[in-house]
């Protein structure tokens, strides 16, 4: 076997897309429509990517349910959710283009739930002022990925009709992991990886590469993420010379399952709350009213009566506090549990049974009903669920240009969770699926244009041989079992870099991670190369190490609390930090951190907000220009 096994399969294309989730597939559609030859690499089977886990919906200000909704409102909500740390241009493009991207899916065959007028129905979600999430029950992610998967197949069918060959211009290579990117002179030229099935290597020459690899959640013990989420794209980008931003911001979804232990972390959709569910502690108290932060006081109800009234009369009542952005709810749950008011198994109660009738629950939340029944023996139509925070999403990622999704390395693009900036310090539910579509399309489009400009790429034998040697190293090692090392890494992150952080703990985390590094470098794999999960994990571990380092370092540096980064020793937001972005790069194998000042928001963007709101987040110099735009005379008086 060894001779054929060491032969490297050589491929080439114009646009190589790493990742076959929503962003990757949307990018593939766009690049193929631009006439490019495209290869999509899927770490698992085609159509199984983590996007299928998304439940609630795709946020797009179509205004189908409440006609007052528009891109400006969506944009404002996104910035509030991200505590104004967002790349405003990305958030703007996202809010503007999301409706078109969702409508487009219908032309690919998607079947969303409908309004009585026959339009796409939209549901309420945390942080969104109006019902905004296009959805299909609570399995929207599945609909999205299946639709895109089928769109790819239909493009292949077009190619087959024209050329007789399905894979003439668009090829999906499944169960394949990329381990290296090849670069020279600050530009990418291709990638190297292995096929899981056989363990055989492949090298793909491509002048343009789109990273769409998702997140890093597998580095945490309690997570809603699957085995694939090992930060591959983040690490590939770092090693290729690109930079990561905002790595300290990790979203803990407030509601993951907590019992039984084997399902701890599995997601319980926010739609449960959007559709009427409430959170209670062990004393039966609806505790979220005690946790509405100052910046959100105006938008959220302060009594159960008002909160309940909102579901039927949103114009005259404020929103229930259960629908605060995820970071707020997760912290509140964490604090209730720490104060001894948690549920039997260390969570809180999420109750929809007493609030909605069984038929409604089963219709709106079929997979939650199924999930709890099958996995926890809980009937959510008659009993409350036990829930607690679970690692869900990383806001940080590859630093990209908002309009083109291009990183600082020529030819390297990133879209979806692997990119950073769009969501600021905290992502709103529903903004992920729309993010995938908006920036997946842009990445595909601009990657195709880049390929057009730069022409074909070529790879050298030496760099391929070196990448192969690196990938085979675990078989030579006498080191530790990768599963034990992964558990050790998860334990460090879970214990010291979790939902609530302290400088001392983060320093400890860095020491422990440093101690793990040589062990990870020496990790050993046993057995053969064909479908060997131990080997695969051994290779993934180094990516997880890099991401964990970047997160811990950035978390230590940022001594304030904002969104998905809460420092117990530095509570509250600091306006100076709002305009400061932490950038991670890799230099000589070490993660380096530097501060970067965020681009100031232009006047027309600032004008979308009330000055009083801007004042909660910004220094006066930053928002005074908005005053002029909004109300020139008053603004000048306010200026110092």
């Amino acid at each position, binding site marked *: 076997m060894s001779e054929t096994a060491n032969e490297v399969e050589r491929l080439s294309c114009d646009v190589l897309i790493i990742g076959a989730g929503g962003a990757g597939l949307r990018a593939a559609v766009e690049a193929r429509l631009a006439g490019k030859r495209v290869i999509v690499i899927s770490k698992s089977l085609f159509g199984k990517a983590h996007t299928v886990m998304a439940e609630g919906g795709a946020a797009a200000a179509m205004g189908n349910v409440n006609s007052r909704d528009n891109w400006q409102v969506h944009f404002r909500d996104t910035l509030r959710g991200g505590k104004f740390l967002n790349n405003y241009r990305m958030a703007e493009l996202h809010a503007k283009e999301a409706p078109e991207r969702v409508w487009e899916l219908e032309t690919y065959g998607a079947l969303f739930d409908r309004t009585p007028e*026959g339009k796409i129905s939209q549901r309420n979600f945390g942080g969104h002022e109006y019902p905004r999430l296009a959805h299909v029950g609570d399995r929207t992610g599945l609909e999205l990925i299946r639709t895109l998967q089928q769109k790819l197949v239909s493009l292949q069918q077009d190619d087959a009709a024209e050329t007789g060959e399905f894979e003439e211009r668009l090829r999906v290579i499944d169960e394949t992991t990329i381990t290296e990117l090849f670069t020279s002179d600050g530009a990418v030229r291709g990638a190297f990886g292995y096929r899981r099935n056989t363990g055989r290597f492949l090298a793909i020459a491509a002048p343009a590469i789109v990273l769409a690899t998702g997140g890093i959640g597998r580095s945490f013990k309690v997570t809603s993420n699957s085995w694939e989420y090992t930060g591959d794209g983040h690490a590939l980008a770092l090693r290729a010379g690109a930079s990561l931003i905002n790595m300290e911001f990790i979203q803990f979804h407030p509601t993951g399952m907590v019992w039984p232990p084997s399902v701890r972390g599995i997601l319980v959709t926010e739609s449960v709350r959007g559709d009427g569910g409430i959170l209670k502690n062990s004393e039966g108290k609806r505790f979220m009213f005690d946790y509405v932060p100052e910046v959100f006081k105006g938008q959220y109800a302060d009594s159960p009566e008002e909160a309940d009234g909102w579901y039927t009369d949103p114009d005259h009542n404020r929103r229930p506090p259960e629908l605060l952005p995820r970071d707020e709810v997760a912290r509140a749950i964490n604090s209730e549990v720490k104060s001894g008011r948690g549920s039997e198994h260390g969570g809180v109660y999420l109750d929809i049974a007493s609030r909605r009738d069984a038929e409604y629950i089963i219709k709106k939340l079929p997979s939650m009903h199924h999930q709890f029944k099958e996995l926890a023996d809980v009937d959510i139509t008659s009993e409350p669920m036990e829930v607690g925070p679970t690692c869900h999403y990383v806001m940080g990622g590859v630093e990209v240009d908002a309009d083109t999704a291009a990183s600082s390395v020529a030819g390297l693009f990133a879209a979806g969770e692997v990119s950073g900036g769009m969501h600021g310090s905290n992502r709103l539910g529903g903004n992920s699926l729309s993010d995938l579509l908006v920036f997946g399309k842009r990445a595909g489009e601009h990657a195709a244009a880049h390929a057009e400009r730069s022409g074909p790429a070529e790879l050298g034998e030496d760099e391929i041989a070196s990448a192969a040697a690196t990938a085979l190293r675990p078989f030579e090692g006498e080191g530790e079992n990768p599963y034990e090392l992964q558990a050790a890494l998860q334990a460090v992150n879970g214990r010291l870099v979790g939902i609530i952080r302290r400088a001392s703990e983060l320093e400890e985390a860095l020491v422990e991670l440093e101690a793990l590094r040589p062990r990870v470098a020496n990790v050993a794999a046993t057995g053969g190369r064909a479908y060997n999960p131990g080997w695969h994990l051994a290779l993934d571990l180094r990516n997880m190490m890099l991401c964990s380092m970047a997160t811990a370092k950035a978390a230590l540096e940022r001594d304030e609390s904002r969104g998905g980064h809460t420092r117990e020793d530095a509570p509250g937001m600091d306006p100076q930090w709002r305009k400061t972005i932490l950038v991670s790069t890799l230099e000589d194998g070490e993660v380096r951190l530097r501060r970067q000042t965020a681009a100031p928001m232009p006047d027309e963007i600032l004008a979308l907000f009330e000055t009083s709101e801007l004042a909660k987040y910004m220094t006066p110099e930053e928002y005074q220009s908005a005053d002029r735009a909004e109300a020139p005379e008053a603004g000048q008086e306010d200026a110092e």
Partner: protein
Amino acid sequence: MSTRTFRVWRGDDEGGELADFDVEVNEGEVVLDVIHRIQAEQAPDLAVRWNCKAGKCGSCSAEVNGMPRLMCMTRMNLFDEGETVTVTPLRTFPVIRDLVTDVSFNYEKARQMPAFAPPEGVAPGEYRMQQVDVERSQEFRKCIECFLCQNTCHVVRDHEENKPPFSGPRLFIRAAELAMHPLDARTDRRETAQDEQGLGYCNITKCCTEVCPEHIHITDNGIIPMKERVAGDRYDPLVWLGRKIFRKDKKSEQA
């Protein structure tokens, strides 16, 4: 916590055998947890395919005590204390290693299935569909492509030679989904199902429905309505008579 005996098939396309593992099992665990424990503690290279571990992605299909199941949705309390649990790969597809099989048959069949055809002259954003009209197709779109139905269907499970002419239940519900889609512009879904996909091979013994983890009524709501559409086209005496008398075009049956 207790110790159970697991018998797991290990091998590849050149052969293999059942390997016994004594392994710890905790309250509330599913078969996939136990397989992972075997992997972490006893056999690091045990090949198993999985992703979401919540019954949403359809990756961890295998046969547990002979029944096709998702390992992540098969709870250990289904088995008696002391009962040996046998886990084997899907039988219908070529084995890659251990519990992992090559399911590309299903993807090839999917590629032969004509895609959704958007209606002409309807711009994106202008699609109008009523909820009652999309519900039937939505049921089929719940499919997570675990391919348990394809694996269980005796047409290909017990008769390898039927693989070329037969697409299987997963693709029959895809055909039904498009035939019932309110805006699909194609009118030949039933012909494709009968002539290209081998709908006639199905003898509606319903094992696909029995093993579907999404509880899709594959047979009653998908396959049989497709068979009925074909019958309406080719075998219904009243339809035939009506056409003779009114010289109606076939397509007018689209309502």
